[in-house]
């Protein structure tokens, strides 16, 4: 298959999405939900896990049917598979965690427009066996969840003085409301990217051979 990912142990397929090819801090994909729902930790985690569910589900099905889906209709088919899983995730969340579902609002159905999903389907799942597609989806999803959790922790802690709704910084702390507003999202993402770039830069300087 042209452009098929080189063979790799499963653990690498898993780890890639969490670290070296992290969707948010490295690939810079899915910025819309990243900005929109990271004002609270609960929302960030829920969005991350919902996206993981869709990544894994759509990855499995794209991989399962990769020999049956003709090239001409592949994008349509992938989007259909992704949209199905997004709709399922949306309905299941509404039935199990209605409060979080309400908080995520329109961003839940909008997962379908997250280019991370079509990206993984086209670049990875369509070219590998089911187990690799599953593990890759899991890794990318966990990487996405991790980034969203870090961002929302920073924003909720500074913006409200709470974590998962529990007061942490005490009554004396005057919350930076700015952090839970949209500009605070950009500010927090900037800080996170700065930290990641700095760490990667240090690492690259230490082992220039790689």
């Amino acid at each position, binding site marked *: 298959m042209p452009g098929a990912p080189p063979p790799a142990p499963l653990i690498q397929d898993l780890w890639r999405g969490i670290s070296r090819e992290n969707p948010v801090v490295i690939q810079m994909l899915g910025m819309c939900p990243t900005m929109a729902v990271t004002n609270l930790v609960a929302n960030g985690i829920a969005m991350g896990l919902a996206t993981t569910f869709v990544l894994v589900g759509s990855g499995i099905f794209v991989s399962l049917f990769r020999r049956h889906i003709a090239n001409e*209709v592949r994008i349509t088919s992938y989007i259909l598979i992704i949209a199905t899983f997004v709709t399922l995730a949306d309905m*299941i969340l509404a039935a199990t965690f209605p409060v979080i579902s309400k908080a995520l609002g329109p961003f839940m159905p909008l997962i379908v427009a997250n280019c991370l999903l079509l990206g993984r389907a086209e670049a990875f799942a369509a070219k590998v066996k089911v187990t690799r597609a599953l593990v890759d989806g899991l890794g990318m999803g966990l990487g996405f969840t991790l980034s969203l959790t870090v961002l929302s922790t920073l924003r909720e802690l500074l*913006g409200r003085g709470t974590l998962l709704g529990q007061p942490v910084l005490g009554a004396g702390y005057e919350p930076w409301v700015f952090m839970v507003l949209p500009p605070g999202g950009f500010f927090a993402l900037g800080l996170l990217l700065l930290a990641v770039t700095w760490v990667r830069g240090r690492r690259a300087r230490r082992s220039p051979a790689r």
Partner: protein
Amino acid sequence: MTGHHHHGAPALPAEPARQVPAWRLLLTLAVAGGASGALVVTVYRLTLPAVQRFAGQQVESAVREVLKSPARWDTLYLIGGKLVAIAPDASDKRELPQAYVGRNAAGAPIGAAITAKEPGFQEELSLMIGFDPASGTLTGIKVLEEKETPGLGDKIETDSGFGAQFRERVAPLHGIKGRSPAASDEVQTITGATISSRAVIRIINNALARWRPLLLAYDKQAARPPSWCPARRPRRR
């Protein structure tokens, strides 16, 4: 197409010879669409009871709150500009505008609750409003849904002092700033959330203007003894 190979550079890889017939493309999409539809409909039907239960609970706790714990309440449906106690078809009941008439243990009406939704500062703001239809006096309000600015506009929901003001106020309400309310139709707006506060007041005023005549008309046509009108209540001597 194959004739090109004799004249062109033979080293170039040939075009993919396999041309997928149109019916196969159609079949792929039809099967995928059908499977997807079946799955979505199945899960929708499985999750619907839980979703409706949650919506019912939300309404229930809000009615209890704004009517100050009524012993029970009747649900009225608005059909063709009139309130009726029994909706004709049970299946579309949820879609109809509803009013909840709270009653005390003796069965006497203690107020009505309705939901109202209008634009706030950012998005639609939805309220549960409890009031006495005869006098227009509010018994309480609750914000059901808001997406106002966190830390500013959302104080209409998080600042309990703001919501508590609406008890025993008489509509139409007026928002005031910087001083304590003096008259019975005055409500103090929140500093930094003036627009959201005014939206709450506007929604209440519009909702009462719409629902009071409906509830009074319902009461007049209903044959049952309990009445909104204190004058028509049986007097005990």
